[in-house]
């Protein structure tokens, strides 16, 4: 269980995290979704007590991180694969971690086995591939067999097989009753992995919702209609109970009516149709649409968002 209350952080004039409040519950995978630079990593570092919040508090299992009696036995984190000295072997890195929290050496070998790195345990980490580094990071997170696990962009740099492996691992941790908090900038990945979503943009909380609801809300379907006479068709569609939004290139995005119904209306009004097509916004587009207003460096794409 992780509880944040009014968490804020700024670096100079740049507000990285803006008054975030949330609860992350055990037994499910909670996805932390936002574009790059939205404040996900900063939030995770504040949970771990690495960055100091400007204001607000965050607790893990009811305590601030720095007062956990055995931090690694309560919280396991993959913050970034690079948080390991390249000149040290995987075994020695895990050993340095284990020794701080009175975790037996046998557990070091156990987690190396678990992530499939036993055969390279004595090799210097600098020689590891990106995927092996990520596996080692996961071994670190598993070391204390913690009930709360944080993963910052765990699938970065992994091949499809590795991505599937991480996804299944996270799901199994949640199934065991652990609190699993995983950040990503990929909506499609979160749709497959997470049960619950925290969505942030520009450091602000945008959504705190079950994944299914988020998808249902955001992946709307609509019918695109092109006609030389948009005004009269719009009136007719609205009379029939549809909702019309005019897109930037003059096409009409219609919701609330089936394509066939719209075709019938056009025929009865003797309005010519140049296009009548069912469109559905992808998850990625839905995500862009929702975070769009809070994305810092986004190109101006106007009303096209979500329509392709």
């Amino acid at each position, binding site marked *: 269980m992780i509880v944040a209350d009014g968490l804020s952080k700024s670096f100079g004039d740049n507000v990285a995290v803006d008054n975030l409040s949330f609860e992350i519950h055990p037994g499910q995978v909670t996805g932390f979704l936002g574009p790059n630079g939205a404040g996900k990593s900063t939030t995770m*570092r504040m949970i*771990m*007590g*690495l*960055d*100091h919040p400007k204001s607000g508090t965050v607790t893990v299992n009811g305590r601030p*991180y*720095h007062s*956990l*009696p*055995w*931090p*690694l*036995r309560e*919280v396991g*984190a993959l*913050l*970034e694969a*690079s*948080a*390991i*000295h*390249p*000149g*040290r*072997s995987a075994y*020695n*890195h895990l*050993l*340095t*971690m284990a*020794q*701080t*929290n*009175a*975790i*037996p050496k*046998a*557990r070091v070998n*156990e987690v190396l086995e678990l992530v499939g790195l036993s055969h390279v345990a004595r090799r210097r980490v600098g020689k590891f591939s990106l995927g092996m580094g990520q596996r080692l990071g996961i071994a*670190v997170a598993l*070391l*204390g*067999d913690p*009930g709360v696990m944080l993963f910052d962009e765990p699938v970065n740099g992994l091949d499809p097989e590795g991505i599937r492996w991480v996804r299944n691992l996270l799901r199994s941790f949640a199934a*065991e*009753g*652990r609190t699993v908090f995983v950040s990503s900038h990929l909506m499609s990945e979160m749709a497959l992995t997470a049960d619950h979503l925290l969505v942030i943009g520009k450091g602000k909380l945008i959504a705190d919702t079950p994944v299914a609801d988020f998808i249902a809300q955001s992946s709307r379907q609509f019918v695109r209609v092109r006609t030389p006479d948009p005004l009269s068709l719009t009136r007719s569609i609205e009379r029939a109970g549809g909702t019309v939004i005019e897109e930037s290139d003059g096409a009409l995005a219609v919701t609330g009516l089936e394509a066939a119904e719209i075709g019938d209306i056009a025929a009865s009004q003797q309005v010519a149709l140049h296009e009548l097509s069912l469109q559905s916004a992808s998850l990625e587009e839905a995500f862009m649409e929702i975070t769009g207003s809070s994305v810092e460096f986004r190109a101006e794409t106007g009303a096209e968002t979500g329509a392709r």
Partner: protein
Amino acid sequence: MTPASSPVDRVPPGHYGFLGALKSEWTKLRSLRSTALSIATMFVLTIGIGALVSAARASRYANHGFKSGFDPTRVSLTGLLFGQLAIGVLGVLVITAEHSTGTIRSTLSAIPRRPVVLAAKVVTLGFVALVVSEAVCFVAFFVGQAIIAASAPHATLSTPGALRSIVGGGLYLTVLALLALGLGTLIRHTAGAITAFVGILLILPLILQSLPSSYIAAIGKYLPANIGIAMMSPSTLPDSFSAWTGFALLSAYAAVALLVGGWTMVKRDA
């Protein structure tokens, strides 16, 4: 939730602490090549240069009559002034390597109370530095005396002041390693911290030389490099602190660097 067979199941009473931090720091130190490399460099520089200077000074003593101020103990320890740079690098790297590689975040996730981490580093580095520094000083002394004995009067451990100079030289290097750790904690960047360390030892004396001589006499004895020379010299030098006063002052410098470094470590984001 937790597999029953897991050894991690047995949560020990109490909480994480200093002993675990010490073990971890020891593992960190011994598991990096840079540790062995800086220690080896210190041995080569200190003993090698000590041997060269011993041979040169003994020969000038014998053949050219440069007898005044010839102190065989001090001559054999001359290499320390070079070896000190290597142990400084070791002291700096103990903390800056964690920042440059991001390991500090792993470390602090395991030991969130930062002063515990720094204290464990001080004890581990201090112990290792003391052992290797004393070893290198004794070896440099014996190697130097063996060379000097061929052509000039040499010292033994029972020569007045000799043993104190050897031990003092080792203590000097040890405290320098801790001073370097303090600078590294404060500055965080390897290159910056090493530059500061070298600046204090080698550049400050040069700057001082450009000042009027009355200043040199008054200020010179406070410089770490001059304290070092006092600590490794059998007799008290003019315009200089005694060996033990110098040792206390140098330790105070290191303590200030570590305290200020520790304070910023607690205040800043990792």
